[in-house]
């Protein structure tokens, strides 16, 4: 059953209610069993999906992903060999591809999209939620950190970059031999771990937990 949340009465301050972020329909904010899912009655948007020890898993996955990110940036990413010539390049080289002349701002943007923002998001999430794993109160500025991580979600494009690598590999496959270095696998693993973490994260449940544990 999904529709455990129903509107019955509307208290003045809106306490005990939750509104669908997509269509604004009010629902009664009831305690959900672990593993249950609550969807909006009108538009079907997933509102709550609490899981057992979700916080621990999210923090562990965020920590794993940030370690992988460090490996992905500094180890050799791809190696190209053709007719005795070879060229090794790292993720950093891909970022710096636009650094000549007037395209420099694009280098900065690419660096932000594929490395800086994904990494900063992981750090923000780990910072805000790690104390919760031990049952402590949320750290100072946990709310702005979480809000920022949510706002930056569409701009963290690590998974799009790795798909771009696949496309680029097919493009040069006829031209030369390409070998994937350790950073390539680190990056691929990072994308998987990040997707897993984002799927585990139930935004509304996290916000409720942060609010409940906040020292008043």
């Amino acid at each position, binding site marked *: 059953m*999904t*529709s455990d949340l129903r509107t*019955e009465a*509307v208290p003045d301050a*809106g306490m005990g*209610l*939750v*509104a*669908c*972020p*997509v*269509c*604004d*329909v*009010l629902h009664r*904010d009831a305690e959900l069993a672990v593993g249950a899912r609550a969807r909006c*009655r*009108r*538009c079907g948007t997933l509102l709550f999906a609490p899981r057992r020890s979700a916080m621990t898993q999210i923090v562990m996955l965020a920590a794993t992903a940030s370690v992988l990110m460090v490996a992905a940036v500094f180890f050799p990413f*791809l190696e*190209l060999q*053709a*007719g005795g*010539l070879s*060229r090794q*390049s790292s993720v950093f*080289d*891909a*970022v710096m*591809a*636009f650094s*000549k002349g007037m*395209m420099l*701002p*694009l280098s900065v*943007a690419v660096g932000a999209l594929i490395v800086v923002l994904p990494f900063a998001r992981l750090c923000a999430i780990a910072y805000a939620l790690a104390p919760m794993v031990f049952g402590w109160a949320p750290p100072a500025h946990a*709310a702005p950190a979480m*809000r920022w991580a*949510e706002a930056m979600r*569409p*701009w963290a*494009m690590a998974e*799009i*970059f790795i*798909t*771009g690598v696949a*496309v*680029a590999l*097919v*493009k*040069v496959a006829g*031209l*030369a031999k*390409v070998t994937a270095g350790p950073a390539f696998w680190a990056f691929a693993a990072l994308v998987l771990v990040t997707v897993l973490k984002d799927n585990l994260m139930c*935004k*509304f449940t996290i*916000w*409720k937990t*942060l*609010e409940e544990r906040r020292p008043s």
Partner: protein
Amino acid sequence: MQVHDMENAGRTQTFLTARRAGLVACRGCGAVHAKGVGACRRCGGTLSSRDAGSLQRVWAWLFAGLIAYVPANLYPMLVTTTFGKTRESTIVGGVIELVEHGSWGVAAIVFAASVVIPIGKFITIAYLALSTRIPVTIRGHGRQRLYEIVEFIGRWSMIDVFVVAILSALVQLNFVVTVNPGIAAVSFALSVAFTMLSAQNVDPRLLWDAYEADDT
């Protein structure tokens, strides 16, 4: 207040929204507040019942994206130098090359990401923005599906910029062959970013309000 069941969720049904109840909901965390409250008590985000200026920003970013998309197609995306001979290829030119090489799959991916998706996005966002003003035929759930698709898929257009970055970083074999980015990469990246901002500014609650209004 009447309670509705999922089973009769039909076209003519009126749902109790936070706005109709005289409340304001937070889109970030779902918390519901009394009208006039400025910041969310749970997550600290800014509250607004309906984002009044959102449509203006949607149109502004959409036109910016549309304008940036023109040079993105006219100027070269990739500059390939083979034994001193320089060849420039545009987005569509690159797709045609791939087809000539027989890589139909990759050609399809690149064509979808850099031509079909951007143009489809321009049309869809314009359609959704118009649907808040004039009655349109697609029903509420259909409109929401369109909105979700545009939000989800828009960032994937950036793949073309990443492919250019990887190729430019990797294919640098001195005099034999070098690949460098063309100026179109900048305008294409800008176009994608502007359309992402346009899509993010769509307040989906306005889509549902308009759908309700169409109905009566």
